[in-house]
C-alpha cells in the first residue's frame, strides 16, 4: 500500500473523474486567460512617503523632520522621487520598465480607521458598509467559467477574495517531512468521500505546485515569510493550468513608533517586500512573466510629519507599486500635490490626487479585457464616475 504515493493518488483521482463541485481543482481546469494578476495588501498602512520618497520636494526635509532620508541613501527615480534603500533591489526592474511606483492615491472615503479603510479597499465600495464580497472575487465571477481561478495565499481568506466564487487557499503547512505516508493514507480515505475528495486533492496539488516534496513546506516566520509566500504564489500562477488571480497580504506596517531610516524597522520590511517580489518573478517563465501584473497596495498613507515617538500616524494619500512583465513602468505615476503645509490634506496628510479604484480598474481592464460596464457596476459597484487609468499595462 505504501507504493501508492501522493503523485499516483493524484493521478488516480484525475483518472477517476471526480466531480469538481468545490474548490477550483487546479489540475482539471482549462484556463481561458493566460494573464496573471496578484493583489498584495499591506495591512496597517504602509508609509508611502518612506517608500517612494519625494526627496525633490522643496519642503521634504522640513516636513518630514527626523524621518527624512539622507539623499545618498536613496535610489534616484526621477527629479522628484527616490526609492527607499530597502527597495533598492527593485532598481533594476524600474530601469527595465517592470516597476511603476504610484504616489498620492487613496480610497474614495475619508477615514483614518484601519478597519473601515481596509474594508473599503477590499470590498471595492465607496463606503464602509458590510459587503459580503470583495472585488477580486467579483472579478473572478465576471471572468466566469474555467478561467475563474483564484487563490488566497498565506493567511485567512481576505475580504477581497470572499464571495460567490469558490477560491482556493494555501499556506505553508506545519506538516514536516516524514508525514508523506500519513498524508498518502489519508488521501485514500478522502478519495472515498464524495464531498471532501475534491478539496483534499486540490490541497495536495497546491502543495506540489508550491514546492518540491523535499523542500518542505514548514511555515516561516517574520520577514522570511515574504520570500516564501511570494515564491509559492509565483509557482501557482506560472503553472500552465494554475491559478490566474492571487491575493497575498502582510501586516506589520502600522509604524506609530520608531519607524527608522536606512535599515530601520520599516526599511527592513520594505526590503523583505522587494526580495519577495523578486522571488515571485524568479518562479515565472519569460512568457508567463510578460503577462503578469502585481499590484501592491495599502489602506492609506501616513502623516507627513514625524510624531512624538519617531513614527507616523494614520494619514490619507499613500503609495502603491505596480510590478510585472506586463507593466508599463520605468516612471513614477503621480500628480504631485506637494508637501508645503497649505498643500496638505487637513494640514497633515498627503493630499490624494486619485482614487485607488482608478488604478485597479486600469489594471483589470487591460489584463482581463473587462468592459467598462462590468468594472463600473459589478467589480466596483456604482463607480461610473471613476475612470480607469489608461496606459498602465503593455
Amino acid at each position, binding site marked *: *500500500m*505504501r507504493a501508492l504515493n501522493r503523485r499516483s493518488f493524484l493521478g488516480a483521482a484525475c483518472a477517476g473523474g471526480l466531480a469538481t463541485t*468545490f*474548490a477550483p481543482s487546479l489540475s482539471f481546469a482549462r484556463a481561458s486567460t493566460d494573464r496573471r494578476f496578484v493583489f498584495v495588501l499591506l495591512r496597517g498602512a504602509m508609509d508611502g512617503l518612506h517608500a517612494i520618497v519625494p526627496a525633490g520636494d522643496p519642503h521634504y526635509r522640513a516636513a518630514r523632520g527626523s524621518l527624512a532620508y539622507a539623499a545618498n541613501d536613496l535610489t534616484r527615480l526621477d527629479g522628484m522621487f527616490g526609492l527607499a534603500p530597502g527597495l533598492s533591489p527593485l532598481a533594476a526592474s524600474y530601469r527595465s520598465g517592470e516597476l511603476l511606483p504610484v504616489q498620492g492615491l487613496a480610497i474614495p472615503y475619508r477615514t483614518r480607521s484601519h*478597519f473601515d479603510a481596509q474594508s473599503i479597499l477590499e470590498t471595492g465600495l465607496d463606503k464602509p*458598509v*458590510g459587503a*459580503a464580497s470583495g472585488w477580486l472575487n467579483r472579478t473572478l465571477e465576471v471572468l466566469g467559467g474555467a478561467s475563474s481561478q483564484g487563490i488566497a495565499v498565506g*493567511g*485567512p*481568506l481576505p*475580504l477581497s477574495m*470572499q464571495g460567490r466564487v*469558490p477560491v*482556493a*487557499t*494555501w*499556506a505553508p*503547512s*506545519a*506538516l514536516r517531512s516524514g*508525514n508523506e505516508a*500519513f*498524508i498518502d*493514507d*489519508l488521501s*485514500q*480515505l*478522502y478519495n*472515498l*468521500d464524495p*464531498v*471532501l475528495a475534491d*478539496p*483534499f486533492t*486540490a*490541497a495536495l496539488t*497546491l*502543495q506540489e505546485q508550491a514546492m518540491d516534496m523535499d523542500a518542505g513546506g514548514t511555515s516561516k516566520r517574520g520577514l522570511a515569510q515574504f520570500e516564501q509566500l511570494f515564491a509559492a504564489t509565483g509557482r501557482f500562477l506560472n503553472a500552465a493550468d494554475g491559478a490566474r488571480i492571487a491575493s497575498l497580504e502582510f501586516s506589520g506596517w502600522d509604524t*506609530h*513608533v520608531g519607524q527608522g531610516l536606512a535599515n530601520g524597522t520599516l526599511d527592513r520590511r520594505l526590503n523583505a517586500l522587494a526580495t519577495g517580489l523578486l522571488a515571485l518573478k524568479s518562479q515565472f517563465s519569460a512568457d508567463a512573466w510578460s503577462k503578469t501584473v502585481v499590484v501592491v497596495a495599502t489602506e492609506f498613507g501616513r502623516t507627513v510629519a514625524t*510624531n*512624538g*515617538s519617531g513614527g507616523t500616524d494614520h494619514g490619507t494619500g499613500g503609495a502603491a507599486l505596480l510590478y510585472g512583465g506586463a507593466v508599463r513602468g520605468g516612471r513614477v505615476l503621480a500628480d504631485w500635490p506637494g508637501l508645503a503645509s497649505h498643500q496638505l490634506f487637513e494640514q497633515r496628510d498627503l493630499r490624494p490626487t486619485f482614487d485607488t479604484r482608478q488604478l485597479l480598474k486600469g489594471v483589470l481592464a487591460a489584463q482581463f479585457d473587462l468592459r467598462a460596464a462590468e468594472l463600473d457596476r459589478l467589480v466596483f459597484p456604482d463607480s461610473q464616475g471613476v475612470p480607469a487609468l489608461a496606459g498602465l499595462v503593455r
Partner: protein
Amino acid sequence: MQIDPRLRALNRFGLGARPGELGQIDPKGWLRAQVQPTAAINPDKSLLTTEAMIDALAAARNTGGMAQDRRQAMRKQGREMAGREVLSALRHAATTQTPFAERLARFWSNHFAISMQGEPLVSHLAGAYEREAIRPHVFGRFEDMTLASAMHPAMLIYLDQTRSIGPNSRAGRKNGRGLNENYARELLELHTLGVDGGYTQDDVRQLALMLTGWTVGGLARGRNGGEPLPFSFADRLHEPGAKILLQRRFDAAGEQEGRRAIAMLCRHPSTARFIATKLVRHFVADRPQQADVDAIAHVFQRTGGDLRAVSLALLERDSAFYGTERKFRTPQDFIIAAARALRVNDFDRATLRALQSMRHAFWSPPSPAGYGDTVQGWADPDSLLRRADLAKALTRRTRGRNTDIGAILAETMEVANPSALVQILDQQPDRNTQLALLLASPDFQWR
C-alpha cells in the same frame, strides 16, 4: 452507513462523543435533560464581568501618559483578555456535561455575532458579551437575548451604535454629525427579520432614529454614583419626534422606542422563519427541509420566541436522528470533538493560532453575519490539511496514556467505509499515528 441515534445525539446535537458515553445514554432523554436554564452557563469564575471591564477601561483612559502608549497598552490588554476568555471557553466546551446547551450557546453567540477584527475594545468585551448577553438566555426568551445583545457595549461598539446621533437631537444640531445605520440594519437583516424579511431602506433609517441615544455610558463619563455604566441612554443624542417602523407609528418615548421596536421585531413572523431556518441548517442539514423549518417556526411563533420550547422542538425532528444528510464540523467544533474523544481538557496558544489559520478564531468573523454553517465554507483545501496537522499535534499530547483506539472508532464516529478505514489503520506504524489518522479521517470531520 449504519445510523445510530445515540451517536447523532452526541455528535449532531452535542460537541462530540467521548469513549464510554455511548452505552449510557437514551438519545432524546439525554438531550432533553440538558434543556435547563443553568446548563448553558460557563462556570469559570476567574473571568471579568462587563462592569469590571468597563471600569478598568475607564480608569486606564483617565491615567495620564502618552495617548500612543495608552493605546498600545490597551491593545495588549485586549489581546490578553481575549486569549484568557477563549481558552476558558474552549476548556468549557471540551469538558461540559451539557454539550447540547453549549452548542446552542455557541449558535446564538454566532447569530448575534460581534467581531474582534474591528474595534479594539471588542476584544476586551467579547467573552463577557457571550457570558452575560447570550448564555443566560439560551433557554429563555429570544426577545430578552436580542435586547441583552443590543444593550451590551460589545455590540454597541462593534456595530457603531455609539456613533449614531439623531440629526435633530441636541448633539446633532450642534456639531452636524449624524445617523449611523449600521446596527439598525444588522438588527433587521441579521438578528431578526432576515434579509428578505420585508423591510425597506426607510425602515432601516427609522429604526436607526429610534435607537439613537443607545450608547456605552461608563467609558466617557466614568462611574455614575459609584456604579460603572456599561449601557446608558443619552437623551441629547436621541432624535425627537414620532417614527414609523414597518408601517406602525411609534410616539416619541426616548429609550423606550428602541425597546418597543425590538419587541415588535422579535414577534414578527419573518423572524420566526429566519431563526427556524438557521437552527435547522445548524443542527439538521445544510439545505433545510421546509417541513423542519415550518415546525420550528411554528413553535417559535406560538410561544413568542420561547427558546426552551424551540430547543425541545428541534429534538423532535427525526430527520436529524435518522436522515442521511451529514453536517460538516467547523474548525472549532473539530478541535473540540477531537479533544473530547481524546479527553484532552486544556488548550494552548498553538490551538488558537491553528484556529486562526483555519479562519475560525473565536469571536472574529469577517462580517456581522457571523461564521458560516455549511460544508462549502469550511472544507477548503488548506484547512483540510491543517486538520491533519492538528490531529497529529493533539494526539502527541496523549502520549503515555493508554487511549483506547477501538473505543474511539466504535463509539465516537459514524464510519462510511469501515473496511477501508480499518485496513488503513492497520498499516500505521504506531498507536499515535493510528489515533491521528482516525481524527484526521473524513469520517471524523462529519457529524
